[in-house]
């Protein structure tokens, strides 16, 4: 999901040796593996019971400090007594899909969280069949039709906005992207990686375009902006990682909002103060990541329960406040008391996919301070096609412009 690391060479090799993969026979027999919604799965009580019996849930490339996922994992494990296995937390979307295609049955993920651009041909097997199985969560109608597959194969979950992250020693404090040209920031400004490979960096370039006379259909000014920053010496090409921040290799970065709370906590651990601000000249909310259930999921019920949990709009018990008495409640009663995934993500400074509906209903929690998009500021959200078009421009021009 995050950065790119290991190519699945080992995975590919093991697949060549091991027999082909099918869902375990016990599950294959169960109707729950094909249940397209909660009713078909027998309702919440039955789903919780079946999920508890499976005992485990396999997730993949989910970093704990990413969008508050750590809290979602802890709360789910504590409430339902289901152990969550997280394979390769720092892997990429490509790795997730490659694992479904090649891993042995026991290593198959139950669910994936992938970039929306990965839902095309890459998410199909060699015969053109989807790697996913359709499932529509109870709150399905609150997901914008732009960001879900009509048949329920995949569905947007949360998105990030681009914030300016800066060390508290930076003076003056930046408030907008255009500020980054300030000569006082020489050798301080970084990106989260290579915009032709990392979504965070790519989206940052897109935001820089909006702040510099570009638009959702014109990303070039963003590339030109970083080319100019490179020329002035403000832009340093170290990837904006925690280690590089700790060493002082950069002091200001354009970053995902939802990595902020985790990064702030890590910075505090080494005696630094990291601050975040939404740039006043470009509030860009990226297209969401998407959830999907693996068609070969080894834990069919736990996978569906996890999705219901992630899309729950409830305010309620967290991993710290769930008691033993709560875990003895009936499945539906317990589920109703839990803080839902949509609010867990919101507390992690992400924008849950149902944000708009939840605002109307008044079920949305208040996001952490510093991450709100100021009232009245216009936000931009590129469509899928606009992202693809911008991606091709960035891929073609980035290296030559910033060399």
């Amino acid at each position, binding site marked *: *999901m*995050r*950065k*790119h*690391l*290991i*190519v699945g*060479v080992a995975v590919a*090799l093991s697949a060549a040796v091991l027999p082909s993969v099918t869902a375990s026979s016990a599950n294959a027999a169960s109707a729950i593996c094909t249940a397209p919604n909660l009713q078909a799965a027998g309702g919440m009580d039955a789903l919780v019971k079946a999920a508890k019996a499976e005992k485990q849930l396999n997730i993949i490339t989910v970093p704990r400090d990413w969008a508050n996922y750590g809290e979602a994992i802890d709360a789910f494990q504590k409430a339902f007594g289901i152990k969550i296995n997280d394979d390769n937390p720092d892997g*990429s*979307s*490509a*790795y997730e899909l490659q694992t479904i295609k090649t891993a042995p049955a026991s290593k198959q993920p139950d669910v994936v969280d992938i*970039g929306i*651009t*990965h839902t*095309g*041909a*890459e998410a199909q097997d*060699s015969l053109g069949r989807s790697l996913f199985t359709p499932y529509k969560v109870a709150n399905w109608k609150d997901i914008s039709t732009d960001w879900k597959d009509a048949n329920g194969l995949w569905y947007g979950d949360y998105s990030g906005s681009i914030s300016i992250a800066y060390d508290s020693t930076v003076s003056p404090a930046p408030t907008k992207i255009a500020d980054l040209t300030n000569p006082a920031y*020489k*050798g*301080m400004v*970084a*990106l989260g*990686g*290579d*915009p*032709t*490979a*990392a*979504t965070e*960096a*790519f989206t940052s370039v897109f935001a820089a375009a909006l702040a510099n006379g570009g638009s959702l259909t014109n990303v070039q000014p963003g590339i030109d902006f970083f080319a100019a920053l*490179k020329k002035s*010496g403000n832009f*340093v*090409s*170290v*990837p904006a990682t925690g*280690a*590089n921040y700790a*060493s*002082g*290799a*950069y*002091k200001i970065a354009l970053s995902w909002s939802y990595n902020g709370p985790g990064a702030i906590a890590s910075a505090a651990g080494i005696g630094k103060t990291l601050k975040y601000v939404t740039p006043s000249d470009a509030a860009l909310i990226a297209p969401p990541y998407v959830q999907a259930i693996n068609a070969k999921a080894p834990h069919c019920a736990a996978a569906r329960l996890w999705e219901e949990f992630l899309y729950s709009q409830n305010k309620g018990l967290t991993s710290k406040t769930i008691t033993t008495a709560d875990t003895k409640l009936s499945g539906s009663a317990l589920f109703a008391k839990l803080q839902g995934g949509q609010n867990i993500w919101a507390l992690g400074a992400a924008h849950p996919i149902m944000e708009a509906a939840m605002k109307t209903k008044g079920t949305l929690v208040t996001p952490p301070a510093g991450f709100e998009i100021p009232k009245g500021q216009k936000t931009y959200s590129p469509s899928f096609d606009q992202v693809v078009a911008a*991606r091709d421009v*960035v*891929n*073609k*021009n*980035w*290296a*030559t412009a*910033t*060399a």
Partner: protein
Amino acid sequence: MPETVEVEIKGATSRGTLNRRNLLVLLPLIPIFVYLGAFFLFPMSRVLFDSFKSNKGEFTLENFQIVLHNPYRLAFLTSIKLGLVSALTAALPGALFAYLIEIKGSERIKKLVSSLSGVLSSTGGVPLAFMFIAAIGAQGSATTLLKNLGIDLYSGKFTLFSFTGLVIVYLYFQIPIMVVVFTPAVKALRNEWHEAATNLGATRFNYWRNIGIPILFPSFAASFLLLFANGFSAYATARAMTVGNVALVPLQIGSLVDGNIQVGGANIGKALAMGMVLISAVAMIPYLVIQRRTRRWQS
């Protein structure tokens, strides 16, 4: 640098014993062949095969047409330039250093340099990049120290996060590699030749022009090509210091095969990989030819 394993069977008396000896010699090599097959030949043939495939699985030459254009064209040029420049700047100082240590150094110093070069030549990747960023990055500790002394590294055009910066960091392992691979050649330069030449009236210049340099040159050229291949293909160090602003083929393969932005470009990545194989082969073939010639002088 891996030593070339060469099996040579001399003067066998009859065909029978030759075959038996052959088999015995080959036996311990079986694990190596298995290893080569599983981790070199098999993946390589898959990469070759896939590089001619479209995303629909049909045969195509399109992947190779794409990699001839920007940004991939630029990446090939920059990678080749990085290999050449880092090899050029490392080869001469490395060779001189190896010579001086071998001729002037005491046994103790020779041993020290030899083990030091061995360690430094295999330093690379993220730790190496991090060392340099922490030292002479824009906010590095050496940079700050020098600035306090009135020397501002970053006042002009210099930045560590550029092509020049990469070359500087690469020298950290390229020079020690040169020392490691060139020292045997210097060792083979026999003192008697120098004495004989002097006895026949040769000046120092005559000796170097007609004997020393012609004997050392093949080793030098071979070492240079090895450095080129090394600088051309390095991945992790460059990845930790750049965000796509220095276009390099290995990094672009990474973006295509395992990135979050490019989708469906894996086979283009494989075509890029085949391009790298081709360039490395072009560099390594003369290396092997030269190696064979030099061995005559070093046995």
